[in-house]
Structure formats: C-alpha cells, structure tokens
C-alpha cells in the first residue's frame, strides 16, 4: 500500500514537471488548454484506477516519464542547436581569427 502511494505521488510529480515544461515552450499553454485538463484528469484518475487496471505496475508513471523525456529532450535539443548553430564565418571574421586584417575596400 505504501509502495503504491509512493508511485502515485511520483506520477503526480512527473505530471507537475510536464506542466512546467510545457509552459516554458508554449506561451498559449494555460489551465484552459485541453492538454492541461487532460493531464490534471490523469493525475486524479491515477490515484484510483491505474493501480487496478494497468498491465505493468508502473505503467502510468512510465508513460508520464516518457512524455516528460520527450518534451524536455526537445527543448534541450533546441537550446543546444541554438547555442551551437554554426553559420560560416565571413572572410573578415576568419582573417581576424588568425590576427590578420583584410585590405580596405572602396565600393
């Protein structure tokens, strides 16, 4: 029983983290969103039903974690891509990199 209660609690925490992650990436995400409502419903339903009906004992917790991993992974991937997005350097920039200067040009 205590074990089951702990699991319910950790599902709840995962759902809370999902909500805070979604708020970070989606400015239109509010308690009025269908996604928000669904998540809240799940967290409530989880306390009663899943322990009885789910196939794997940790099913609801695992699914919540999968979704969290997906949302969090996508955000981090975007951040890393933004941080390291290359773009070629211009001739001037490459020259400056090795301490050289291009001759002045007059157009």
């Amino acid at each position, binding site marked *: 029983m205590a074990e089951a209660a702990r699991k319910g609690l950790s599902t709840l925490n995962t759902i809370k983290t999902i909500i805070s992650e*979604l708020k970070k*990436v*989606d400015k*239109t*995400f509010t308690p009025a969103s*269908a*996604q928000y409502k*669904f998540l809240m419903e799940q967290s409530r339903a989880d306390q009663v039903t899943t322990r009885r009906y789910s196939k*794997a004992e*940790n*099913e609801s917790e*695992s*699914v919540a*974690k*999968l*979704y969290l*991993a*997906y*949302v*969090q*992974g*996508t955000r*981090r*991937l*975007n951040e*890393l*891509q933004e*941080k*390291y997005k290359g773009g070629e350097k211009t001739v001037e920039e490459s020259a400056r990199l090795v301490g050289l200067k291009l001759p002045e040009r007059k*157009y």
Partner: protein
Amino acid sequence: MSVKLGFFVRRFVSNQASALTKPGKFYKEVTVVNELDEETGNQTHKILLDNRILKTQGGKVLKLHSYPLALAIAQEWSSQSEYLQLGQMRLTGLAFTAQDNPLEQSVDTISQKVLDYVDGDTVLFFNTENSKLHRYQMENWAPLINNLNSDLGTRVRASENILDCDVANANDKEKIDRWIRQHNFPALVGLQYATESVKSFIIAYNAIRHHIDTEVAIDAATLEQRTQAETWGNVEWSHGLEREELMTRLSAACLFIYFNSNNFTSKRI
C-alpha cells in the same frame, strides 16, 4: 552600390530557394476535434490549426484514434515558435508515416526488419578488450537481456565474438516475431523507429515494456561512447546534441506505440 544590391538580391533569392529555410508559423490556435465514426462507433480525432485541418504530406486529413496522442500532436504544433521545426515534431512525423505509409511497408516487411536487428543487436556483443567497458556492459546490458528472456521465454545470449551469428536461435526468433506481430500497423511503425534509433531491438523492447526509462535506455545505447568520453572528455555540441536527439526519438516512438496499442475510448456495441 551595385555590388551591395547584387549581394542583397542573391541572398534573398537563395533564401527563398534553399531547402534549409523553415516555414513560418502560420496559425495561432491549435485545437483537437473529436468525431464519431458512424461505421465503427469509434472516436476519431483531427487537429485544427486555426480553421485549417492538419493534413499529412500525402494530402490526406490526419485521423487519429487515440485522444492522448491527438493532444500530444496538437501540443507539438502549439509549441512551435516563429518557425516550424518539422523535423523535431516526431509524433506528427510518425503519425504521418503510419497513415501515408510512403515506403509501402507491410506487417511482414516491418517485422522482418525489426527481427533482423536481433542478430546484430548492440547489447548482445560484449567487448573483452577493454576491461572497464566490459564491466559496464555486464552491469548495463545483461539485465536488459534477462528482461527479454524472462518475459518471452527466450534464451537469447550475449556473445564476445562479433562473428557469432546464433545469439538468438530459430525458436527465440519465432517467439520474438510473435510478440512483434501483436502490434497494429501504426505501433509497428513506432517499433521500427525506436529500434533503428537506438540500434537495438532489446533496448527498444525494454523501454516499450516499461522496464527502463528513456534515460537508462539511452545510457545503454551509448555505453561505449560514454566510456570513451570518461577518458577523453565529453563534447557538448556533438555528444550532448546526439543524446538529446536520441532521447526525443526513443521517447516519441514509445509513446506512439503505447497510444496506438492502448485505446481508451469505449466502443459502441
């Protein structure tokens, strides 16, 4: 002046034609519409971008049978900022692929492709040359093989010789094939995607059956690389990027399989 103008024009034109330009976000609100299919009595769900219905690349209206999946796909679209990152919307991509089936795959071809992975599965080949790596492989990979064997009653074994070709015997493969074929077509698309992402059927299997979470699965899939990085250092722009990408691929595939295999909507009799 003319040089500058030429530069500007070239730049503008090349941007227009480039395959690298991303489409802008052309909608504000994303909603899920539920419809009752008169013939089967099942609910189908569609995605609305403002007032346009989301269509697949094949030009058909995207129809989903799982409400949570529809919500998650809608969330992908509403999480986009200025430009659409279509390549990162993996659930949308999987749903499109499952519906359009662009490679004209069948249950047979997909199960064969997935089954082929077992013969060369990442976690079945241990390296004896590096004692640290070998220890990690015993710790991280052996439990995954055990999970598979105890669930399906197979006797798949790890090998220390990469030329070994009987890590799974015919009987084991038949049992695994039977498990694979329990899935419906969309779930199979997800299973193939998961397997190919982590280059291992066994890791994908463990993640799908909720034995391990995504983090542990990716650790197992990149075990050798991480062991090397312990010695030589981690390069964020390469290793970090790859890790997050694998995380999103595997978790999206597992979710896709789960939602297509567990239908919560009640059927009308």
